[in-house]
């Protein structure tokens, strides 16, 4: 008898859900069947150069290969927020910096004592990229790097 009571409640509950779904269905359909085309960005990141804020620094790009050249002034020197990487998508993206071999490193953020080359950027966020250079003063340095998305 108790079993029947429980199954009756369950069945009525399920039937009510079916009824609610049936009533809500046309409005859900009406809301989602048509859309307006928006500007959909397929680009996983945008690079904004800030090199004009640094003296004698130059920025170049060829495809996904970026190049920054500058003249080193001290044996060990960090340049912060040389470029800004922006995530224009609607979801979080992971970026990875691949630097070519050399004494100059490219890193995310502004903590030059703990340079990181991999970061997860929330949707719409901007991340500064800095350069950490260790070489003889007044020498011309060139760093090449690529940005990979995961």
């Amino acid at each position: 008898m108790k079993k029947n009571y429980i199954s009756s409640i369950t069945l009525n509950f399920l039937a009510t859900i079916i009824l609610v779904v049936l009533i809500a269905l046309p409005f859900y359909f009406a809301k989602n069947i048509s859309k307006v085309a928006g500007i959909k960005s397929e680009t996983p990141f945008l690079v904004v150069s800030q090199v004009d804020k640094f003296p004698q620094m130059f920025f170049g790009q060829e495809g996904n290969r970026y190049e920054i050249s500058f003249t080193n002034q001290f044996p060990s020197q960090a340049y912060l927020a040389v470029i800004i990487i922006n995530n224009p998508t609607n979801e979080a993206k992971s970026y990875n910096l691949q630097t070519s071999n050399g004494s100059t490193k490219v890193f995310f953020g502004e903590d030059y004592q703990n340079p990181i080359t991999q970061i997860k950027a929330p949707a719409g966020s901007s991340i500064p990229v800095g350069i950490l250079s260790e070489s003889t003063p007044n020498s011309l340095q060139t760093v090449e790097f690529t940005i990979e998305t995961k």
Partner: protein
Amino acid sequence: MIAKNITKLIDEAIIPAMFLILAKMSGLFFASYFLNLEFEIKNNSFLKILPSLTYANITDYIKAENYSNLAMFLVASLGTAFVIVRAHFFHASHIHPKLHARLVSLNLESFVSSTYHLYHQAAIWLIFLWLTCAFLIISTIIGVTYPQISVIAAITTINFSWILAVDIEKEIELIQEI
């Protein structure tokens, strides 16, 4: 096991739900066809299985939405009006004897409906009518549907509800007389 009322309401809700979906689709199709609106059909973009229409610009989208929402509301109104007419003139509890006799002579007795059937049908159509009206008002607030459509929808919905309430009142009086 399942309450008879719920089963009856589910049964009565299937056809109106289908009509409303068809009205929305027809509204979009006819608006796009006759107004030459630019759109694109994108497969598997709605619920990952159904196609959806993507309009090239906001003006075309607003036009299509307005006409399709209006079509949806017209279907909900017509359905409710049909039930109201049946409740007033073909209601088994208070049908005019002359009309009843005429329907029997024409072999159209199926037009006469019981209170149980009519009020379940009316409840479903009224729910759909009020929800369509609410849908239009929300759509107007977010700037898609023209306010005139929502105003007409609200006035129609209130009046239809009132007419049905009059019939329910009449039915209660009849029960009390018995």
